[in-house]
């Protein structure tokens, strides 16, 4: 508890800017580094190494959690007036399962991927989910799939999806995110779209630990906001979500894949929507996608 109080009261501005989720586990980590009774920092002899490691830890965690500054308010206001296209491209197209296997004297990790490309059209489904959430934030947002008014040709979609896939495969990743295919941009501009919010993810993962620990599911969504007229990136950020999950059917594959992938479809949408909320599933405050981008006021 003392560790938590320390973070809330004495943390650096960088830490203060990150969400509560990060704070709570940061607090635990800090409490592990510093004994509880020393949470009020005293610069005494012998504390130097601890303070050094604490500073290092804070710098690392702040780096992991920080978002770019929100889009300027005059620009974000334009998003509510001008047409914004929302596009989700699934660069992965498979579920990643991993399982820890307890071998008494050793622990092994095994994994398996399940390819749903050609079976579930995640691009279309999750584009609509993101477009719905951005519309709720007040944006003049349109999904690039399923809307007769936009109806982009395949010649525009295929090269853009290829660029998103190439971005995820590249090491190191380009700083400004995936490039925008000229055909894709021109198709949107010819339909009077001023802005683009491009979304992708690193795939849905389910990890099953050993010794009765609860399985965890996770997704990590990435967002890139572009001004299509000026052809420049405006904002980018990543929003990871990890949650405990109960497997009532006792296997990951049956939980997610039975009944025409009903579990995968439901859990993916739920996890994606959760990052648009200002509180997580446990009721703890988090920085929502809208707040980080500047489309939603901070609490």
């Amino acid at each position: 508890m003392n560790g938590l109080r320390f973070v809330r009261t004495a943390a650096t501005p960088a830490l203060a800017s990150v969400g509560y989720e990060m704070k709570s586990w940061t607090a635990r980590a800090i409490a592990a580094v510093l004994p509880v009774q020393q949470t009020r920092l005293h610069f005494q002899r012998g504390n130097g190494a601890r303070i050094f490691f604490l500073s290092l830890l804070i710098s690392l965690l702040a780096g992991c959690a920080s978002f770019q500054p929100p889009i300027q308010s005059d620009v974000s206001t334009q998003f509510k007036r001008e047409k914004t296209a929302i596009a989700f491209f699934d660069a992965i197209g498979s579920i990643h399962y991993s399982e820890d296997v307890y071998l008494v004297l050793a622990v092994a990790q095994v994994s398996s991927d399940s390819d749903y490309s050609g079976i579930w059209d995640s691009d279309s489904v999750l584009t609509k989910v993101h477009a719905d959430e951005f519309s709720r934030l007040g944006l003049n947002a349109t999904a690039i799939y399923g809307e007769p008014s936009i109806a982009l040709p395949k010649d525009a979609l295929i090269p853009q999806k290829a660029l998103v896939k190439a971005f995820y495969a590249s090491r190191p990743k380009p700083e400004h995110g995936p490039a925008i295919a000229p055909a894709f941009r021109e198709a949107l501009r010819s339909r009077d779209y001023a802005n683009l919010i491009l979304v992708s993810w690193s795939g849905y993962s389910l990890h099953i630990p050993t010794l009765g620990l609860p399985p965890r599911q996770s997704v990590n969504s990435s967002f890139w906001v572009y001004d299509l007229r000026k052809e420049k990136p405006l904002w980018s950020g990543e929003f990871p979500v990890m949650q405990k999950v109960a497997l009532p059917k006792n296997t990951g594959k049956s939980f997610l894949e039975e009944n025409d992938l009903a579990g995968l479809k439901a859990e993916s949408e739920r996890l994606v929507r959760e990052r648009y909320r200002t509180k997580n599933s446990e009721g703890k405050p988090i920085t929502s996608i809208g707040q980080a981008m500047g489309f939603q006021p901070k609490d």
Partner: protein
Amino acid sequence: MSSRIRLPSSVLMALCVAVLVLSACTGANIGLKTDFKSAGFEIGRTTRSEVIAHLGLPQRSIEDPDGHTRLLYEGGSRLTGLCIGCGNAAAPVGAVPYLVNDQIVKNGAEYVFDKGGILVRKTEPIVPGR
């Protein structure tokens, strides 16, 4: 007279190990199905949906230029981490997985479907999967 039962430390150790093993065994798992032969998929009759309904999603799905779809199933999960005594399951496993994972691929199956989603060719392991 005390009612407490004192067990030898070796028995206690064995009990702890047994509890840990049991708790590990009863937990959830990935649930790969590898009973390829027993499924009895028939060329010219079985559909892609039926294969997926029985075996789950494949590890790879490939669209051929001629319109055929190939579903590739591996004969088990791949070993991606192993650590003896340290508890870090994600530790690199050195040369071991090449042997293990190669065998997993060899024990896998491949199903090819035409444009209408009907099974036209299959390759299953000679030795039934685990």
